[in-house]
């Protein structure tokens, strides 16, 4: 709760910085503010009550609109840590642009939306969180004013985003019509008391909300906008989209379906299983043929979305796999930040073609090593965090009727390893296009060291995060 206030305050402060001329100190101020908000998640962390009541009986705020329980705080923590790393990655983005205070404010308000999505307990705050997160992202995606690709990315993101919002709203309206309430607890209560006697349009509403959120997390077959938007946006904004936005959208999806609709898990479970299967197959096969690393990372993010959806699906009758989704989102976010930092330094011209990586091990061995660790983690090779992330998701899914998804996941992960290794081969075995060494900023060096060590550390001792709710 306090973290949400701090980030909102920072956003307002960022807008005032232009008028009161403290632009120079804004960047350190934002970094400190994000760390303070992160520290507040520890302050708010109450001693745990028993297992099932965790989501239901903790303090609610604003007429039960927002509920910062431990699950919300844990996901807020992941988002804030990722945002902190992202601000280090994006330091240049804020130096080169003219209207820097606006960019700061937009990113910070997007973070406010992300925190709301981790903690909503009413469909009004779900909708507002989605929009507060999305609208600044549309502007940021289009923030290279002269670049047509960036304009197009912003426009596509806006059209697809508002289209999905329309579905979300229609779903909310139908669910409200059936239950007479916007409150998640109220909806859950209504479903358990009705004993199957609910109007058909209620199910239609649930499915429309599922479709809308699949758009937002870019799961197939609703993923078609993602590669274009990821490729056209400035690289740092793509990094923000594939980490913070994705984690927030997942936290929302998990909260909505595992708290609000978990009594009708069989209805949405089937559809979600099909979505997961399609995402795994389409993303990994298409990614293998991409020539742009940026676009490849976009497809890889679709396949990671499928893995996190597996966690939600395994969760449908209880809350057992929340910590495995948390672990996955942390491992994935940190790995993505590292790989986007390398991509940003290697390919300054924004298109991220794979040839830019040729011979990177000679031009800058440090960047190459960091990229290897990040990609191995994203591919799920043992010792890195990504392996355990996949492993925990698999173990939670094994006890459900959707075991066949594991077969699909294993086969497509093998295909996935191919395109990650394509980058590794380019870095180590292809001749470089120029012998000029790649220069890296001091701040980026520190960021890469931290993220690489972090990836290895949570891979070696995963128990700390997996056991967080115990």
């Amino acid at each position, binding site marked *: 709760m306090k973290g949400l206030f701090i980030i909102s305050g920072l956003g307002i402060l960022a807008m005032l910085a232009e008028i009161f001329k403290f632009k120079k100190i804004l960047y350190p101020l934002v970094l400190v503010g994000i760390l303070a908000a992160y520290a507040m998640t520890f302050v708010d962390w109450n001693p745990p009550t028993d297992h099932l009541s965790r989501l239901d009986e903790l303090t609610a705020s604003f007429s039960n609109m927002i509920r910062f329980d431990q699950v919300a705080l844990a996901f807020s923590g992941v988002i804030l840590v990722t945002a902190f790393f992202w601000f280090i990655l994006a330091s240049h983005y804020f130096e080169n642009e003219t209207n820097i205070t606006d960019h700061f404010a937009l990113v910070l308000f997007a973070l406010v939306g992300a925190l709301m999505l981790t903690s909503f307990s009413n469909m009004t705050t779900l909708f507002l969180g989605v929009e507060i997160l999305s609208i600044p992202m549309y502007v940021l995606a289009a923030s290279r004013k002269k670049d047509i690709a960036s304009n197009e990315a912003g*426009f596509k993101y806006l059209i697809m985003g508002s289209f999905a919002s329309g579905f979300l709203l229609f779903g909310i309206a139908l669910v409200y019509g059936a239950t007479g309430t916007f409150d998640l607890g109220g909806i859950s209560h209504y479903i358990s008391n009705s004993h199957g006697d609910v109007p058909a349009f209620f199910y239609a509403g649930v499915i429309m909300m599922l479709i809308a959120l699949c758009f937002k997390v870019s799961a197939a077959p609703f993923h078609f906008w993602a590669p274009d938007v990821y490729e056209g946006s400035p690289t740092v904004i793509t990094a923000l989209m594939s980490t913070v936005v994705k984690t927030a959208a997942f936290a929302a999806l998990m909260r909505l379906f595992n708290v609000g609709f978990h009594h009708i898990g069989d209805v949405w479970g089937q559809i979600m299983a099909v979505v997961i299967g399609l995402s795994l197959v389409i993303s990994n096969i298409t990614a293998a043929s991409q020539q742009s690393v940026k676009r490849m990372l976009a497809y890889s993010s679709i396949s990671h979305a499928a893995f996190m959806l597996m966690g939600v699906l395994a969760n449908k009758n209880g809350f057992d796999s929340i910590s495995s989704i948390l672990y996955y989102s942390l491992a994935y976010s940190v790995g993505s930040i590292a790989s986007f930092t390398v991509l940003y330094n290697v390919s300054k011209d924004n298109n991220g073609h794979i040839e830019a990586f040729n011979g990177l091990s000679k031009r800058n061995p440090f960047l190459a090593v960091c990229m290897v660790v990040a990609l191995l983690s994203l591919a799920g090779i043992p010792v890195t965090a990504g392996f355990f992330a996949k492993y925990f998701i698999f173990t939670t899914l094994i006890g459900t009727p959707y075991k066949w998804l594991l077969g699909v996941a294993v086969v497509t992960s093998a295909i996935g390893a191919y395109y990650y290794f394509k980058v590794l081969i380019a870095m180590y075995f292809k001749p470089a296009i120029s012998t000029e060494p790649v220069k890296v900023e001091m701040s980026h060096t520190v960021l890469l060291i931290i993220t690489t060590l972090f990836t290895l550390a949570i891979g070696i001792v995963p128990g700390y995060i997996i056991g967080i709710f115990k």
Partner: protein
Amino acid sequence: MLNGISINMYIMLSAVLFIIGAVGVMARRNSIILFMCIELMLNAVNLLLVAFSTLHVDAKGQVFVFFVMAVAAAEVAVGLAILSMIYRNMKTIDIDELSKLKH
């Protein structure tokens, strides 16, 4: 029953309006019309919310409509800004011309 009309009729009407909007978004090529179609989708939702709100004798649904209207206005403001930027760079707002990023 609202004013002698069954609630299903209201659901039908808003579903039809919503589908017209959704098909418009997918089929039309002019960006301004795209925005109008999205507005149509959101207004179908507003109609449905108000109908259910009256049915349940509960003001929450109508309050929600205000949120939807405010957010729709914000979205269109951003959308038109992006659109005017595109027009400045490309001298057209036909979305078929927007295909620099290919699959």
